[in-house]
């Protein structure tokens, strides 16, 4: 094969790739509506009782000590719950009814308290990993159930796996830090080389598509020097702002266009020792991410957006011997966005007396967090509750609509 015939062939390959079912839009029959859902996974087990401290519970102080209220401490929310100082930046949203919380919830995961199993279960959205309900994620199953969703509708963002979006429905995966600069010849040859391996070929095709979507073309003219300086510029740009905010910015950019679903993770929640300091940092990152989404989405889109932050489990009700908390059970979800009916904490509060704690140590979950996620889908995308209970969260009883949305 000489270069000319190869180039002809690679063009043909390029075409056939674009027309392949994996890359083609599923359907243009109906649009998936205007609502947006952002799911943030807080990996490590976020301490719900620190995020939203139930300081009005008579047994709280015995477990956690007196929490400082006021300008430098926790902010009172409603006389019963108080907001962690690291989340203070979100208070205006609370006052505008665009920030809410769900408390004393968990996945069905019990007893072993492993992060990794806990996260698998959270993302799979099933009751039990052992019963082998396919290893796909609930957001992916949702994509398949909502009419009009297509391959541009969902983005899994960042460097990690996000199995919540794994599954048969095509979604986009990208990390805003990755950018490509290649000569046109290298682009074509890379496509050719990858044809030996369908999985890698599909990833590369998507990479080329997404790297172009930021408006900065992949192909560089002028050869290697030009390419190297472009890569150096990209690296420098990516160091400038925090990684988490870049995730949020990228998510907002896609959501303002065709995307309706975005998901990414934030780390830093496994706070076994001296947790005040670490939680302060992690909460303020989360707060920045929410505020970045708000400012980048701008009012019209923000008003149609629901953000939900979930975690694999809560932490022990008591502080441990090193001023941290160990792996627990019941925890909290954080809700934000213009579509949210905020300004309130949704909870069937179980109480914190010894007898009320789960196994004498953890906050008792009084409801499955999947029920709240399910009702969000119902409200945002018009899914029937029977569909949710059958296809998205199999065997879940959705129960009463908590009315999380405006």
């Amino acid at each position, binding site marked *: *094969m000489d*270069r000319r015939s*190869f180039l002809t062939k690679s063009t043909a390959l390029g075409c056939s790739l674009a027309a392949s079912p994996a890359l083609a839009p599923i359907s243009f029959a109906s649009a998936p509506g205007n609502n947006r859902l952002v799911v943030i996974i807080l*990996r*490590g087990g976020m301490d719900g009782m620190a995020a939203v401290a139930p300081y009005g519970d008579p047994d709280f102080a015995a477990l956690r000590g007196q929490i400082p209220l006021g300008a430098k401490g926790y902010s009172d929310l409603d006389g019963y719950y108080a907001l962690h100082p690291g989340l203070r930046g979100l208070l205006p949203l609370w006052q505008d009814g665009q920030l809410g919380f769900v408390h004393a919830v968990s996945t069905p995961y019990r*007893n*072993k*308290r*492993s*992060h*990794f*199993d806990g996260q698998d279960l959270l993302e799979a959205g099933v009751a039990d990993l052992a019963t082998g309900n396919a290893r796909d994620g609930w957001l992916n199953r949702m994509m398949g159930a909502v009419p009009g969703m297509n391959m541009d509708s969902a983005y899994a963002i960042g*460097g*990690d*796996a996000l199995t919540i979006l794994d599954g048969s429905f095509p979604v*986009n*995966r*990208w*990390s805003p*830090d*990755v950018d*490509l*600069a*290649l*000569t046109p*010849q*290298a682009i074509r*040859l*890379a496509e*050719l*080389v*990858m*044809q*030996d*391996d369908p*999985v*890698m070929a599909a*990833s*590369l095709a*998507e*990479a080329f598509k*997404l*790297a172009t979507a930021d408006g900065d073309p992949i192909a560089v003219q002028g*050869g*290697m020097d030009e*390419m*190297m300086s472009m*890569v*150096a510029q990209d*690296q420098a740009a990516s160091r400038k702002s925090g990684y988490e905010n870049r995730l949020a910015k990228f998510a907002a950019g896609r959501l303002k266009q065709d995307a309706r679903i975005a998901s990414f993770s934030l*780390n830093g929640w496994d706070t*076994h*020792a001296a947790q005040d300091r670490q939680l302060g940092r992690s909460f303020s990152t989360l707060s920045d991410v929410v505020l970045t989404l708000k400012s980048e989405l701008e009012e019209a889109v923000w008003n149609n957006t629901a953000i939900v932050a979930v975690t694999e489990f809560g932490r022990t009700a008591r502080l*441990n*011997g*090193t001023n*941290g908390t*160990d*792996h627990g059970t019941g925890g909290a979800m954080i809700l934000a966005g213009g579509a949210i009916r905020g300004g309130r904490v949704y909870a069937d509060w179980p109480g914190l007396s010894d007898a009320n704690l789960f*196994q004498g140590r953890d906050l008792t979950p009084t409801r499955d967090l999947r029920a709240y996620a399910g009702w969000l889908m119902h409200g945002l995308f018009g899914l029937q509750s029977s569909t949710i209970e059958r296809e998205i969260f199999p065997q879940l009883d959705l129960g009463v609509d908590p009315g999380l949305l405006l």
Partner: protein
Amino acid sequence: MTFDPITAEIRFGCGLSPKIDPPSSVDEMLDGLVGADKMSEWFRIPSFQEFSKRLVRAQALKKQRRMQSDGADSEELRKQIRLLNKAARQDHFDWLGSHILRRTYSETPFRERLEGFWADHFTAAGKGGLLRRAVSPFVQSAIRPNMAGAFEDLLIAAVTHPLVVHYLDQVGSTGPNSIRATNKPGKFGLNENLAREILELHTLGVAGPYTQTDVRELAELLTGLTSQASKGRQFKTNMAEPGSETVLGKSYSGSRPDFGDIEEVLRDLARHPATARHMAGKLAVHFVSDTPDPALVDALERTWRDSDGNLSEVYGALLKHPAAWWTDTHNVKKPFEYISSAARALAIPPKTIQRFQEKEMRQRISEPLRLMGHIWQKPSGPDGLEEADGEWLTPQGVAARLQWAVIVPQLLMPRLPDPREFVDIALGGRASEAVRFAASAAESRAEGVGLVLISPAFQRM
């Protein structure tokens, strides 16, 4: 299928090299684990003990600074602390270079791969200050010398090491009825983290037969184990929970608590059948396939149980099993395996990378690793790197590999090889027509080499 040199070098080694012959037998590979450690001599990484001197120095400077807060002296101290931090950061990158060069030049590359496997199994990192640079010295001291003997010795060396004790929050864990806790009620207590991860990650596995009560009892049994920068691992009787603890039905620590109790429970956990099962699966997945032949896992488990976890025997069982050599499925190289096997295929000269300053190492190695999905020595959790190939073959992961492959190799050596020859050096007969064509049709050496390195045949093991 049985042993073949090329598969041995790619799957169980660090990839093909133009300078080093692949092994000629399984026995040669196993012998390589116990012979002289030439790579540690050539490409140095200090012991943890040596590294600790710097920790002690940093602590002394900080203490001095706290004591004299007045102007000029304090400024001078701050400068010294800054320089110490800077030197530690440069060392951290130099050691990353050493790890790459060891994989580039090792004649016993299975040893390097095992180091990678066990360093990941016992994932640990410093959470602040200079300790963040301690991972390589930890691996050099606790992992590398203990990879060919009994698993229980490796387990004890790793999980009682100061870095793991720190990383999994054991340092302050205090028995609720210990002398220390009784003297100051409400100030000290238990931390479950190390106990849980020993059971879940290091020994039995999450499917193992343990309960929350076992976690708690093991945590109590571990109390007393702590560490100090100046003294390393410590056992402090006044922090230890008095009385006996029962883990998996066996009672430990009858009379006086001491470190021997901790060793005893770790030896029992290491020999537990659930540990054999867990580790057999983990080794097979890491070295062979995401979905290994069940017969291979069974064979490893049997050998583990029969030998009480003698690691050399387990590796022997792995390398002698036909399913280890099947070539219809291939794992994908993880980011560090990818970059270091490229360095080996290129036989990059040690001097170039050894001269890199922090900035160059960041741009050329650690930032690309991050974009490929692996933040070097900054784990997101104690469970280590993902084994599933799909985790690494995301669009962003593949894009980051492609960008690295066409740009960075030329910065690692004065002159790149001819891509048409490099195809055979790097792929040893696994080259497809497409990659041969791409190597010859590329517009520059850099792109030609990059296209070989991005080829599926090179990315898979």
